[in-house]
């Protein structure tokens, strides 16, 4: 009887609480029209997730709200893994946040569907001139009416660098590359070979326990191989996509595209200078083995420095090296962006907030918090992100090599990436198929995917 009473009471309480704590009271999250004299309310969906970055975001929003009582911004934290599922639904339902944090590859589809506001005529001159044109190119897309529109403000970018074990690097005697004089891919391969040898591998947390084992020069974490491969392929002019005279985009895998693929494959299976254990791992997964001296170099995005700095055992010394260069040092870039929803009732106020949020001073804070590169030229000169500590000097210098990633404007790229390129590249790096098979499948299967998006 007691359990029945308890259940009944719980039911009543739960229902009462559920009905009484609606929060939104049926209002959509998107801003509503404000009565004269009332503060305009904006929702800002942020995807910041690192501790320092979240703190910087909240601080900037707080500062804005204090200085602008007439435009109040609500900070809403989302997550990278699910943001596009969330936005698809909210755009369709007309309840998307006013200001949306995302990354440039996701914008083209939303822009084509008319969900994002074209910011072309709204950008303040100061903001526009502070961010260089190559960064604006990452957010400029077909507006679906035969023209181009700017569908976001680019503010953080990622480049590839090499995070290296200083002790093993110094011991190898190789030339240490600098941003002005990076390794060529040949030099990189030679360096990796020199750092491949049987050596003491750390087996205890104190660092005193070691046992001799096979050490490698490099580790390629290729669980998600597409972006890394495509961005580095630009070193040799590999674009993977071409647009014909008829305006149709197709996949191409020629000598330029094969170059980086082949070189990584050679490190794994010909030189045997790459640790095969890291191949199936995600970006941060190889770090414990890196700290054990199992391999000497880890090519990764600049943001991984944060994890290295946080997790490195006491006494472990590491350095940041520039990525190798091929015929050029160019790398494909995507940007983190702030956009305004087409359905926002206060686009001008949203633009004012974005202009403040992404001014030089704030971009420097955001870049430092996320360990990424700011697009703002003023921010890039900020001493807090140009010093030698934690490789900021090398990371910031790598920004000059960033050019718009060719795949960014390819309709259907996401599907090509997940259904075709990811499994094909994983099989290739696992040595299950040849590079000719890679080329054949990327082109034939890929073109079938792209075809559907260009009818």
């Amino acid at each position, binding site marked *: 009887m007691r359990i029945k009473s308890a259940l009944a009471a719980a039911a009543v309480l739960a229902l009462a609480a559920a009905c009484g*704590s609606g*929060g939104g009271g049926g209002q959509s*999250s998107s801003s509503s029209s404000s009565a004269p004299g009332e503060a305009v309310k904006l929702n800002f969906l942020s995807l910041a997730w690192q501790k320092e970055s979240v703190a910087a975001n909240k601080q900037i929003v707080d500062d804005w709200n204090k200085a602008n009582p007439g435009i109040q911004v609500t900070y809403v934290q989302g997550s990278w893994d699910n943001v596009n599922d969330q936005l698809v639904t909210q755009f369709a339902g007309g309840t998307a946040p006013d200001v949306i944090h995302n990354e440039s590859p996701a914008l083209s589809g939303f822009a084509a569907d008319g969900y994002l506001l074209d910011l072309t005529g709204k950008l303040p001159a100061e903001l526009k001139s502070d961010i260089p044109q190559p960064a604006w190119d990452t957010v400029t897309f077909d507006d679906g009416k035969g023209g181009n529109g700017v569908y976001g403000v680019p503010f953080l970018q990622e480049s590839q660098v090499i995070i290296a074990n200083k002790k093993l690097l110094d011991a190898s005697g190789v030339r240490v590359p600098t941003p002005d004089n990076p390794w060529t891919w040949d030099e990189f391969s030679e360096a990796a070979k020199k750092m491949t040898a049987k050596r003491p591998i750390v087996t205890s947390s104190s660092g005193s326990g070691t046992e001799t084992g096979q050490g490698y020069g490099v580790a390629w974490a290729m669980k998600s191989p597409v972006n890394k491969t495509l961005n580095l392929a630009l070193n040799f002019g590999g674009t993977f996509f071409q647009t014909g005279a008829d305006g149709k985009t197709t996949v191409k895998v020629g000598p330029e595209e094969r170059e980086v693929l082949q070189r990584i494959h050679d490190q794994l299976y010909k030189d045997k200078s790459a640790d095969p254990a890291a191949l199936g791992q995600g970006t941060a997964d190889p770090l414990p083995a890196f700290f054990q001296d199992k391999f000497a170099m880890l090519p990764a995005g600049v943001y991984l420095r944060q994890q290295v700095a946080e997790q490195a055992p006491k006494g472990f010394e590491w350095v940041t090296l520039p990525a190798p260069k091929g015929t050029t040092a160019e790398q494909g870039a995507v940007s983190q962006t702030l956009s305004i929803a087409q359905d926002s009732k206060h686009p001008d106020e949203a633009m004012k907030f974005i202009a403040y949020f992404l001014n030089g001073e704030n971009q420097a804070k955001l870049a430092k918090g996320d360990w990424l590169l700011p697009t703002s030229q003023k921010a890039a000169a900020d001493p807090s992100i140009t010093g030698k500590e934690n490789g900021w000097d090398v990371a910031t210098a790598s920004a000059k090599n960033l050019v718009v990633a060719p795949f960014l404007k390819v309709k259907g790229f996401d599907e090509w990436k997940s259904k075709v390129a990811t499994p094909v590249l994983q099989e290739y790096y696992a040595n299950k198929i040849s590079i000719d098979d890679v080329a054949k499948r990327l082109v034939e299967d890929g073109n079938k995917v792209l075809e559907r998006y260009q009818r």
Partner: protein
Amino acid sequence: MKGTARPGEKEPREKRQGVARRVPQYLALAAYIVFLAFPLVWLLSTALKTPQEMALADPTWIPRDPTLSNFSDAFGEQDLVGAAGRSLVVALASAVITVLVALPASYAMARYRSLLNRIALGWVLVSQVFPFILIIIPLFMILRDLELVNTLPGLVAVHVTFTLPFALWMLQGYVRAVPPELEEAASVDGATRFRSIVSVVAPLLAPGVVATLLFSFISSWNEFLFALVVLQDPDVMTLPLTLVRFTGPEGVARLGPLAAASLMATIPSLIFFAIIQRRLKSGLMAGAVKG
């Protein structure tokens, strides 16, 4: 004398044989418990480790340099307590409403055999075939028109809708297991159908009701996708939406705060389970219809 045991001899031998038989059983049971407890213990261990210790070459169960900083980070950065409270409200409401709706419906499904009933049963099954992602936009539109977007009742309505079909199937199995003869006997004693349902069938369904409550509660407590699209304001967000904020792109996560927050997130459901699991026992009807 061969084959006969002196008084007092047989019992110890049987006891010894019993104990010998039970040792492997207990060992297997202990191994199973370790297997089940492993994720929770590892979660606790991770929650108490520093970032450096998480990346060690020789990870240990017991943190060498235990820290509570992951808990302070998790609680300092996110409103975990508020989110847990809202999740509890949503999960309890969803579980209770699901059972209240499913109980009479399952009785009807189990006891009344008709073409309509069979069609209804089939439809309930078919409704489980659709992937959630396929119907999420129309569902969102309906909630928006009902002004239930961004509200906890809206989320409860969605959770009930999606838990109900399986709850119906679960409960109708329990109803079928109650012999109709018990209701007939009550009827012979003068009970009305309603009376026999309330006084005879319902008490026998307690284990089924508890199992359905648990299933509905846990489904709602853990649910992420619908909460993601239905709830938009920070002050209505539930626990799964709060936990995901410790993860970044490409599977990179802040493991320490995530483990600390996840550990806290398991506690309410563990308590709920501990309270309610005593009722989750079968065999209540053993011997109910003899001869």
